[in-house]
């Protein structure tokens, strides 16, 4: 691999968009090329600095009001059930109709999973903004669990893991993959863990996979028709520990 190629591909590597084979090729080049190694390090530093600066803007309240006013107002007596609303959004596997062209696309990871992981991280970031983290504040699973009932087709399992070192702090409704889904929120020390739970037609059990995106770790697994994404700035080892504890508590619940 030449430096010219590497200087483009290191970005896809940093962004987690390269498939395993090409990622390895870029890594091999970087191991043997001081020039590209320095560049990569600097790009990562800039990226980290960007992630830590708040570069977003908040929409003015007046804008929100103007948009609200322009839309037809809801009729309170005719409020449809949450279920029928959700059915409107069940658009299945969201494969983009716009196919990528060009050879470069072949080296990229090509999956919905990547897109959803991106959304999950965005949702995690949104939740960290002031006042966005929790809709129902409680350290009691018997309060959080019923709160979800009626708000979602399937309520996420809510498990108290305080004894295992992860404090349940509440729950929230969020939007991922154009659907409303449940997020159960835990804390370890000052670190927030969002556990996103979505229903899936596929009941196959998928063992955990840990990945890193935007400086956050994601532990993803599936069990009994539910997809789970645990997202946190905790280290991969501690996030894995969280997932392991959660899964064994789930097993204990089912068996017990």
């Amino acid at each position: 691999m030449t430096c010219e190629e590497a200087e483009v591909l290191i970005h896809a590597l940093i962004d987690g968009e390269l498939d395993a084979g090409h990622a390895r090729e870029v890594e091999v080049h970087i191991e043997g090329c001081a020039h590209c190694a320095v560049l990569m390090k600097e790009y990562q530093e800039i990226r980290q600095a960007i992630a830590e600066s708040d570069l977003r803007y908040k929409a003015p309240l007046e804008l929100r009001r103007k948009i609200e006013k322009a839309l037809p107002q809801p009729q309170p007596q005719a409020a449809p059930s949450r279920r029928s609303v959700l059915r409107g959004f069940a658009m299945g596997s969201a494969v983009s109709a716009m196919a990528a062209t060009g050879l470069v696309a072949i080296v990229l990871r090509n999956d919905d999973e990547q897109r959803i992981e991106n959304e999950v991280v965005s949702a995690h970031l949104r939740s960290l903004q002031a006042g966005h983290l929790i809709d129902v504040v409680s350290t009691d699973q018997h309060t959080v669990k019923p709160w979800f009932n009626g708000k979602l087709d399937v309520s996420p399992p809510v498990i108290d893991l305080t004894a295992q070192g992860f404090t349940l702090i509440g729950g929230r409704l969020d939007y991922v993959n154009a659907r409303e889904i449940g997020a159960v929120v835990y804390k370890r020390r000052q670190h927030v863990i969002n556990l996103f739970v979505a229903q899936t037609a596929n009941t196959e059990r998928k063992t955990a996979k840990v990945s890193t995106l935007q400086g956050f770790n994601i532990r993803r697994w599936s069990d009994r028709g539910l997809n789970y994404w645990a997202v946190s700035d905790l280290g991969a080892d501690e996030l894995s520990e969280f997932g392991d504890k959660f899964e064994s508590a789930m097993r204990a619940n089912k068996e017990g």
Partner: protein
Amino acid sequence: MVVNASQDDPEKARRFREAALPYLDDAYTLARYLLRDAADAEDAVQECYLRAYKHFDSYRGPAMKPWLFAILRNVCRAEYARRKTAPTAVEELPEGGDQTPMWNEAPETPEKQMLRRFDGDTVRRLVAALAEPFRETFVLREIQNLSYREIADVAAVPVGTVMSRLARARAMLRSAWLAEQEQAK
């Protein structure tokens, strides 16, 4: 700003609110970076939401955020076109601009020297100073967390173009970062 009678469907409006309004801050942020003007950004986002509502019946996914962004981007491009005739035109590189090899202009920094950290306002200024279409690509990736494929859909370009634009955007930002660092000394 009035939605016509055939659009006056409260159930549709309800679904639209639930699906689209959570992304209002995201849309406003993108418009701020694309237009670099608070009032224009506000107008563009308002127009975007009205257009999105009109086309909401035909919305089939994939995800709401990139779908809204694609609409917003078109609204912003119309605004660029309007400004082109105004005295202060927005600079925009020609489409071939991203073909310039970036490896010719990456200044070397001494190894082990950490890049300096800047405050949020400085970083915003550096990002806002990037030329189009690199700024757009950069903001969609780094601030909006879109995947390459989603960016390709929003900007209506191949994924390969997203990759080269992003590489160039980061190279430009890195140069600007180093220059700012030099100046701050």
